[in-house]
């Protein structure tokens, strides 16, 4: 499907590299069109486990490495409004829930997005993803329905298709292949093993591996089936 034009796109994820696999083609497309995109990344992925053996980083040197990778990914996507929000990896769900909603409300008020992209609550597997998604949905729910931006959500829990059906938004991002590859390679400390696996599958002629560079899939958030009644 054709990617709809937007006024401003706000992307909210908790980890450097969350944008790379599912959204970097879409972000790159908007940037190429001249659409402003803000990426708010809540943590610096301080708890990443892929440190190699022998390790290339320590627990204390990793945040600076991942910060540089995030900045390189933004550059690969042509993104010039990267916000690093200063939370710590794997602690997002323990933050004060109201303060999390306020963080999202402030981002939305400031950027006035026509489209927000985050994870889908209850279908995003990692506790940080879930906490981020909850805060974004709650912030938008508080807006008058007429003023709400569109909300596209990434879902990848094993029960996603059983419960939500197939994604209703499918972006063909083949024209952004190089930019997306750049974003994925920028996060090499976390993506190396996945890229190796992908190269192997491509070499074996498996078309499935093309998917990362063919389509990006989202669910329009279902406000009539909200994940909670109120907050």
């Amino acid at each position: 499907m054709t990617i709809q034009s937007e006024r401003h796109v706000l992307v909210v994820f908790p980890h450097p590299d969350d944008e790379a696999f599912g959204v970097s083609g879409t972000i790159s497309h908007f940037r190429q069109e001249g659409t402003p995109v803000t990426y708010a990344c809540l943590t610096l992925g301080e708890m990443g486990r892929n440190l190699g053996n022998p390790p290339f980083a320590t627990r204390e040197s990793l945040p600076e490495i991942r910060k540089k990778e995030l900045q390189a990914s933004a550059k690969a996507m042509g993104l010039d409004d990267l916000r690093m929000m200063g939370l710590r990896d794997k602690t997002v769900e323990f933050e004060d829930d109201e303060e999390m909603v306020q963080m999202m409300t402030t981002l939305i008020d400031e950027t006035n997005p026509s489209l927000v992209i985050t994870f889908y609550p209850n279908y995003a597997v990692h506790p940080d993803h879930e906490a981020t998604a909850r805060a974004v949905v709650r912030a938008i729910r508080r807006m008058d329905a007429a003023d709400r931006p569109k909300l596209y959500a990434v879902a990848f829990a094993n029960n996603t298709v059983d419960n939500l059906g197939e994604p209703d938004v499918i972006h063909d991002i083949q024209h952004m292949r190089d930019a997306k590859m750049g974003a994925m390679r920028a996060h090499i400390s976390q993506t190396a093993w996945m890229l190796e696996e992908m190269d192997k599958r491509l070499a074996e002629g498996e078309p499935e591996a093309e998917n990362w560079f063919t389509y990006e899939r989202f669910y329009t958030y279902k406000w009539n089936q909200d994940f909670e009644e109120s907050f």
Partner: protein
Amino acid sequence: MELVDVTTLQTHLSSFENEAVYIHLETTNGAYASHFNENVFNSGAFVRNVQITYELAKVVGESPHRVGLKMTHGWVYAQGITHFEMDNEGRLLMAGHDQSGKLAVALQISRTPFSY
């Protein structure tokens, strides 16, 4: 980081005995463990910038090693330590990396708080 040399690591550990130090201790099997395999029980623990004073420290076992810190009223220990580094800020960083290079456990000791 380098592979644990027991004598060297023991010397570093002992150098912090009987003074107030900050510790970082974590163990994890990764947030996605039960997503990829539903038979895996996801568990982990994380402590950062808790201050302790230990009177005795020991590194024991063949690699992966166990490191134990004995306090007046308790214990801290970590199992699975493979690598260590005395970093340029005088902090003793210990970690256990599995065969695929994933961090499984970390124990760190510092005279000043670790960054938030």
